[in-house]
Every structure is written in C-alpha cells, then in structure tokens.
C-alpha cells in the first residue's frame, strides 16, 4: 500500500534479480552432469550444421571403439528416427529425441531422453544435437565437453559467421577433408585462421571418415577427455599447428 500519502494505491517496487534467464535450464543441466559423473559416463554434446557429418563421425567412432568402449547416443532430430537408426546399425545404443519444431536440445529433453537408454552402463554418451549452428550453443545440457563438427564444404568463413557456437567449442572436428582438392577457394589454413579469431584456445582436428585421417587423434582426444576432464584438455590436446 502507498504509505506516502495514504491514498490506498498499490505500491510499485523494484526487485533486483540478477539471474540468468536460463537459470532453470542451468539447474537441469547441473543435475544431468552430476548423474553422468556419478556413473562415470563421459557426455559429449556434438553440434554442427545439418550435413556436417555428425552421424558419420559417430559411426566411425563406434566401429573403431567396438569391443573396447561402450558407446551410447541421444540423437536430436526434428522429425525422424533416421540418425538413431544409423547409429544403432553401427553398434551404438541409441535413442531419438524428436524435437518437433524446436531448433535445439535443452537439459530437460536430455533428461527425458535418458529414460530411453541404459545410460548408466555407458563409457561415452554422445548427445547429437539438432543440426544448427546457432540455437544449440545457448543451452547447457550437462555435457563434459562441446564438440563442433564443421565440414570443409561449408566454406572458410563459418566460424566468423557463427562466433557464439565456436566460442563454446572445446574441440572442432574439421570433417570431409578428403574433399579439399575438389573445393576451389577452400583452404584448411583459412578455416584454422577463422577459428583463432573466435576461439581463444582453438582446438581442432582435421578429419575424414573416408580416408581415416585424423580419426586416431579424435579417439585420443576422447580418451584424454575421459581421463582428465575438460579442464586439462587445452594442455594435453594439439596446438594451433596443423
């Protein structure tokens, strides 16, 4: 009640909040992260454009780690179960999160998706996000690391155009490098230079699932992530050199 003049009007008060608008998602993500760590599951949030090669990277990873590591995946997909089907065919325990029209996954969707998977038995859980270089970057899912898949066919300037996504990346997989000889005007050096302008500590691995180049480095990176966690990655992974 207004107590200045006694008029009986309600009082307008300022309430300082100073909280992230996505604090609710942050809490759900923290909850997921606690679960993953308690059960020794290394969760990797795999992001990138549609067609960048996210599923292909996971298929190759599964074949190379078959019998050694238990892999699982949650595949975010707008309308189909195709990615999860491909992953299951490659030997990955996989479930889909069908997002409908949503352009990203959030921590609650991942939590619900976990109910479809025997995730506690896994060594690695790959969360294959919706193909999109914008929206997924904003939502913490509880992952241990963010990996962005960028194919050379997307051109040299994608990091400069989508700085938010690449700033959040712990690792960038530069895929389809077997196609570089066919791409006039796309140089690996230029992609790497662009990464250095949006990531203070750019970590990247050029990779081709066709030739197998870079796959060993990627598997070694995953193993380091499992052993040391993300805090040590920058000191143990490769440097800016190609």
């Amino acid at each position: 009640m207004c107590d200045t003049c006694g008029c009986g009007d309600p009082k307008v008060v300022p309430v300082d909040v100073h909280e992230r608008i996505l604090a609710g998602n942050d809490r759900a993500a923290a909850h997921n992260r606690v679960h993953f760590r308690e059960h020794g599951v290394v969760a990797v949030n795999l992001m990138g454009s549609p067609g960048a090669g996210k599923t292909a990277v996971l298929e190759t990873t599964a074949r190379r780690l078959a019998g050694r590591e238990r892999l699982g995946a949650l595949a975010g997909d707008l309308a189909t179960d195709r990615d999860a089907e491909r992953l299951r065919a490659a030997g990955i325990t996989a479930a889909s999160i069908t997002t409908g029209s949503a352009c990203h996954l959030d921590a609650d969707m991942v939590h619900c998706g976990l109910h479809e998977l025997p995730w506690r038995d896994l060594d690695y859980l790959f969360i294959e996000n919706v193909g999109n270089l914008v929206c997924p970057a904003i939502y913490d899912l509880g992952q241990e690391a963010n990996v962005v898949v960028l194919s050379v066919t997307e051109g040299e300037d994608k990091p400069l155009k989508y700085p938010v996504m690449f700033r959040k990346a712990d690792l960038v997989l530069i895929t389809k490098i077997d196609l570089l000889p066919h791409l006039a005007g796309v140089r690996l050096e230029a992609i790497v230079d662009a990464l250095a302008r949006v990531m203070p500590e750019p970590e990247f691995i050029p990779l081709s699932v066709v030739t197998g180049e870079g796959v060993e480095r990627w598997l070694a990176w995953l193993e380091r992530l499992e052993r040391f966690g993300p805090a040590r990655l920058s000191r143990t992974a490769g440097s800016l050199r190609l």
Partner: protein
Amino acid sequence: MHEYSIVQALFERVAAEARTRRATAVHRLSIRIGELSGVEPDLLTTAYETFRTETICAGAALDLRVVPARWTCPGCGRGFDRGDVLRCAACGVPARLAGGDEIMLDRIEMEVP
C-alpha cells in the same frame, strides 16, 4: 528461433517472483543481452511482444540493454578489436571474454499490495 523459449523462461521466472511477493501486476522488466550470447535482441523483443498477452507480463515494458562483446588479455589487460586473433601478441596468452555473453534478468518492477 530459440528466442521463444527464452521468453517462456523469462515469463516463468517473473511469475515465480511475482507469486513470492504476492504482486498484483508487473510494470517493467530490465534484461541484459550480450552480443555473444546467441540471442538476437530484435527477435527476443518480437517474441516478448507476441507472447506476453495472458501472462503476468501482459502490461510490462521490456527494457533490453545490449552488451557489446569485450575480449581482454588477462596478462596486460589490452582489449581486442572485432576480428582479431584472440591471443595477445605481447603476452602470448589467450584472450578472456570480459563481457558480452549475458542473458540476464536484472530487475522486475512490480506492484505489491
């Protein structure tokens, strides 16, 4: 267009605060959006205007402040220009983001009994 889910989260947060304080109306929200937050201020404003009807924010003005990205060297403190390599040429250390990734609700002005 994740701006819609951002405004949904905003409405829920404001509604929770209003319930706690038994507010009868909300007059104004003050939020900060960083240039590197991944949220587009214009789209957020449009989403807010479109979806606020029938929420606690129906009559609340949105006061949105855009925060520019600011990269600095943690060694010598120098700033970086847009498009610079994010490593200090003098100190050799990676730049640090000093501001510009905020998606913050700072203040709610509400009417209380």
